[in-house]
């Protein structure tokens, strides 16, 4: 039995761990690192726990938490209210739709899927930025942010891989 085998206790634990991870990553994103590029980029590491959550938890409470966390992100990033809510939800929906495909998939497939979904989400990010006057649209910065997010997936996914206790499923190389 894997983590994908549902039971209520597991669901709550998984949800809480993911929510807490997203919260911490949102807070960490605003840590003053003194680097200009890190400040202006929007590296979406929080998409990693959202991706994990989407694969194991498709019940509506997850969306409620994501809306709340998206609002928090909007507040801390001083973006228009709803911007990150939209992106979190879009990403979660896209990831949820791939659950069947990713079931028992190899890690390389999972990573590639994460990459594609992240790419689509950042396309949305760029399009909304183009349309909204309060947002600064930069194709370069958006692209770099997306690539950085995709590259960082294996590292930030490690705790969730460990939690899933399904090394065979993730570890197939």
């Amino acid at each position, binding site marked *: 039995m894997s983590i994908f085998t549902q039971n209520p206790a597991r669901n709550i634990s998984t949800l809480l761990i993911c929510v807490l991870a997203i*919260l911490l990553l949102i807070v960490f994103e605003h840590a003053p690192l003194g680097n200009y590029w890190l400040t202006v980029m929007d590296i979406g590491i929080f998409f990693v726990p959202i991706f994990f959550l989407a694969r194991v938890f498709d019940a509506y409470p997850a969306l409620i938490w994501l809306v709340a966390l998206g609002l928090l992100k909007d507040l801390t990033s001083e973006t228009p209210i709803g911007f990150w809510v939209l992106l979190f939800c879009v990403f979660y929906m896209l990831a949820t739709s791939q659950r069947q495909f990713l079931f028992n998939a190899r890690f390389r497939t999972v990573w590639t899927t994460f990459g594609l979904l992240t790419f689509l989400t950042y396309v949305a990010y760029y399009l909304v930025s183009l349309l909204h006057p309060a947002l600064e649209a930069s194709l370069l910065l958006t692209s770099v942010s997306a690539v950085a997010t995709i590259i960082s997936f294996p590292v930030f996914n490690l705790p969730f891989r460990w939690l899933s206790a399904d090394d065979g499923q993730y570890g197939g190389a």
Partner: protein
Amino acid sequence: MTANMEAHKVARFDDEETSFARRSLLLGGFQLLLGGVILGRLQYLQLSQSEAYTTLAEANRVKISPIIAPRGRIIDRYGQWLAENDRTLSLSIVREQVPDLPATLRELQRVLGWSDEKLARVRNAILRQPRFRETLIAKDLSWEDFAKVNLELPFLAGVEPKLGEKRVYNHPQAVAHIVGYVGPKTRRDIEEFGNLVTNTVGQTGIERDYENQLRGEAGVRHLEVNANGRTVRELSAEGGEAGEDVRLTIDADLQAVATKRLGQRSGSVVVMDVRTGDIMCMVSAPSFDPNQFASGIDMKSWRQMLTHERKPLLNKAVQGLYAPGSTFKMIVALAALEAGIIDPKTKVSCKGDYEYGNEKYHCWLEEGHGDIDLEGALAGSCDVYFYDLALKIGIDKIEEMAARFGLGMQTGLDLSGEKTGTVPGRDWKRARYNTGWRGGETVITGIGQGFLLATPLQLTVMTAALANKGVLVRPRLLAGPDEAVERTALGLDAKNMAIIESALYRAVNQPEGTAYSSSLLIKNQRMSGKTGTVQVRRISTEERETGVIANKDLDWRLRDHALFVGYAPHKNPRYAISVVIEHGGGGAQVAAPIARDVMVHLLENEPAAASAPPSNADIGEIL
């Protein structure tokens, strides 16, 4: 069998549940720990350090900008400005506030029409500075360019237009050595004046000596700034206190006349009011333009000035040291008269040379002056008479009289950098060369040469004391009340002073005088004075036999120095003058005419001179 398989499944399920629960607890615990650390840090920053960070935040939001007080003007005795402030428009940049430096610089290049070289220079200057430091990228902009940049400011984050002041100088060449100039603040300035808010500080002359008075007190402006450091609004402003004006005793027009009269020559002209010590004119040539320094002089021009043969940066009036030559003969004469060693009617026979020991000393008049008395010797500047006189009285009395007239020491002028000169004597020579004084040195000192050195200002002060009948007046450059004048009576016999006075009158106004050709051509005004010609090379016996080479045929550095000291009007003297021309030739031919022309301008244009001259009794009372 089925039961066993079922049991195995349940056991495996329990193991996985246990494993998941353990991992969830560990991961959740780690996350909570991380969250706790963040909360703890938040508590520390928000509550424990609240006050400190509030202050820092306020300082980050509020920029304190100094309001530089307008620097005081420097004006001449009649209120004509010599140094004042002019508006200057400049641009500065703070790198850390610029999101895209190359794009910003390209935009500035487009707006200001910079060349690619200029752009590269500016970029290098910016990159050399720390990111947080402001770099001046353009100065002395025209209004048009300044306005263009201001229009583009929304697209030039980090660029700050600045409205400032720069120092400008009137009659720059004429007053450069007195007024000095301002320049960028240096470490030496910070050590002397503290950490000033101003970027420029007086570097030389009055600008330096009266820096504290001229600078005034800076004010403070509190500005609210946004995250980019751009000013949003002014919160408050406390105006500073403008620097005080400094009024000099100089007459700017007279200064300009003297400068023009000196022309390309190297030398100085000093004019002093003999009653108050006011320096009316103090010119040193060649000069320089202090405006060049105020706006930043280039290295090439600076090197040229430093290495120039005629030393334009040197204020020759107070820093140039010259043998006074025959202008020193009055001191020798007074030393002899005061000591009662000679009778003024006593005559000496001048045959053109004088033998002492194995040496032969020559008079400037090859054929000699014949039998000549003291007044005649002074008027005709007979060297032989003074060789003889010097030996009669000895070096000690000459040294003592020279010191009484202020030679060999600073005059006390309120301008820094004054040289002391040298009045040689036995002790001086022992200390300097560790040898005894020789008689031949007394002989040569009798005509103001040898080791003797004086500044043109010292010669003027000495002449003023002669004009004042033996009262030494401290010279001053800062205008002040008459009560502040410092006078020292030298305690000289009036009869002796009268002899000198008569001799100096004859030197300029009678045909036998060396400066007769330079006598004043103003009705009822006469100038008294004494010429001096100082040899700067040794003339060999062979050269004397074949004919001494004329100054004009010599290299500039080998020509004689030309000097003249004098005062006017002869009756009730008001102004003393000294003219020293380095390697100028004869004092009578070169220095005296310049003195005459300067004095003519002074007497014809100076309001004080136009007023009724005071009587002798008045002078006595003033003195």
